[in-house]
């Protein structure tokens, strides 16, 4: 019973932390991107604008719930929930820190250390696309439909790259469990040094999977108004938005865990190291958005199938060869 209580409490705490983290990610993004564009950004609501996410949340909560007359009554409300569910589920396998013991109880700082954690991660991220496609179709609008279809094609293409980029790490560490991947890095070096190509592939694919600039074609405002979420408003829109930001946080956490050693560090290892490493990746997201123009659709597809896929396969072959030769 105590174990079940710990599990439930731990899951709730992590979901709550993700929600809060996501809200402050929007603040962080707006502040940083403002500086990059020589503006100031939100600074009126609270100290340094720190209450801005709260004000935004209240606004979204109290907006009228508008359903377009052409929408599909059954699927239109479900789509944002699917997106959010997949985003939150993916974070479950990220190890936040070493197992701590309190009051005679062992509390691992991770929702679940699955032996097939990496596959779980890919599976959860592959479900997120349904929210986008179903949302795009059920809105009954051309822009939404096109955004949803773009999302489907893009995510299926880049999921492949994401999987390939992780195979190298699996070969080097000999495990699919994220906990053991962290331990393997604690014994040797962070895998970014052993798998630099895998790291670059992972980052490109992960940014494409989260639909962020320069891969934000499913919601390209110059062509598609807002893509798959054009017809959504209020909290339903907010759920898509939360899903996107939670996905960014998850990607940052996974990248830190797999390539930078996660919570492990040569001195004072613990969750704070994971947090610092995640901040680096979250900053990278914002930096890229402020710097790079959006890819054209054919460029996106050529990059995935023509450049990244062969590169990923070569990386796996070379990694396997080196691992076998070195024993």
């Amino acid at each position, binding site marked *: 019973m105590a174990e079940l209580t710990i599990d439930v409490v731990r899951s709730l705490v992590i979901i709550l932390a993700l929600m809060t983290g996501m809200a402050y990610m929007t603040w962080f993004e707006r502040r940083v991107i403002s500086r990059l564009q020589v503006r100031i950004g939100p600074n009126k609501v609270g100290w340094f604008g720190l209450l801005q996410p709260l004000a935004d949340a209240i606004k979204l909560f109290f907006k009228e719930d508008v359903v377009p007359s*052409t929408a599909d009554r059954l699927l239109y409300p479900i789509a944002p929930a699917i997106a959010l569910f997949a985003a939150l589920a993916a974070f479950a396998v990220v190890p936040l820190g070493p197992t701590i013991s309190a009051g005679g109880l062992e509390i691992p700082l991770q929702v679940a250390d699955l032996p*097939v954690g990496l596959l779980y991660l890919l*599976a959860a991220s592959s479900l997120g696309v*349904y929210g986008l496609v179903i949302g*795009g*179709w059920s809105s009954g609008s051309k822009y*939404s439909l096109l955004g949803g279809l773009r999302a*489907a094609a893009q*995510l299926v293409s880049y999921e492949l790259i994401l999987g390939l980029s992780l195979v190298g790490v699996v070969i080097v560490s000999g495990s*699919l469990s994220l906990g053991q991947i962290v331990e393997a890095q604690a014994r040797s070096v962070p895998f970014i040094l052993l798998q630099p190509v895998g790291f670059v592939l992972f980052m490109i694919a992960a940014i494409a999977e989260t639909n962020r600039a320069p891969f934000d074609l499913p919601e390209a405002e110059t062509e598609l108004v807002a893509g798959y979420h054009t017809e959504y408003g209020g909290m339903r829109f907010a759920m898509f938005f939360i899903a996107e930001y939670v996905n960014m946080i998850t990607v940052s956490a996974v990248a830190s865990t797999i390539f930078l050693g996660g919570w492990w560090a040569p001195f004072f290892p613990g969750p704070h190291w994971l947090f610092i490493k995640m901040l680096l990746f979250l900053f990278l997201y914002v930096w890229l958005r402020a710097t790079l123009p959006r890819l054209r659709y054919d460029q996106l597809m050529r990059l995935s199938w023509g450049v990244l896929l062969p590169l990923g396969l070569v990386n796996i072959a070379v990694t396997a060869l080196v691992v076998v030769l070195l024993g």
Partner: protein
Amino acid sequence: MNNAFLPIALACAVALVSAVGVILARRPVHAVVALLAHSLCVAALFLIMAADLVALGQVLIYSGAIVVLFLFVVALLPHGGIESVVPTGRVVSAVVAGAALLAALAAGLAVGAPTAPENPAGGVEAIGRSLFGPLIVPFELTAALLLVAIIGAVAIWRRQEPEPGAKASSRAASEGSLAHTADAPGATGRQRLLDEGGPAR
């Protein structure tokens, strides 16, 4: 009754309901969403039976990739792709085929219920060892099979392409097909597709 009964019953019930939903849904998109639910229930059943890898393979390949492609196609159907009334003959043949399948399954179970394997650990390592050990030849042959399937699919698609003219090079052929989609009949066809896409049009 052990403590796995409730999850198994729940997963089976949802799987059954969603399977019926796939057949009965009038809109193809609804059918595909029901298929997704069904596929996830099957994955849940694998998970309950401690076959982690199979469960995640089910989610990753069937739920995450194949059903997405189904959805991709049916989302583009005009008028949301609502089907006309199904002819009686098809219903009857489906019922007969279903009954035959059920009878075959029941007969198979009556002869002897399947016994659990001696070492049920279907972990990644066990599967990897058997794939690259005793099963290496069939495993590698699958690669050739998939390659043949891909080439076959491309060949079938090429047959549908408009003839670019006997002397035209392949480069000119691809330009020709691009020009074809941009000219008037192609453009209006595409326009119609967009006008009629979506659920309620």
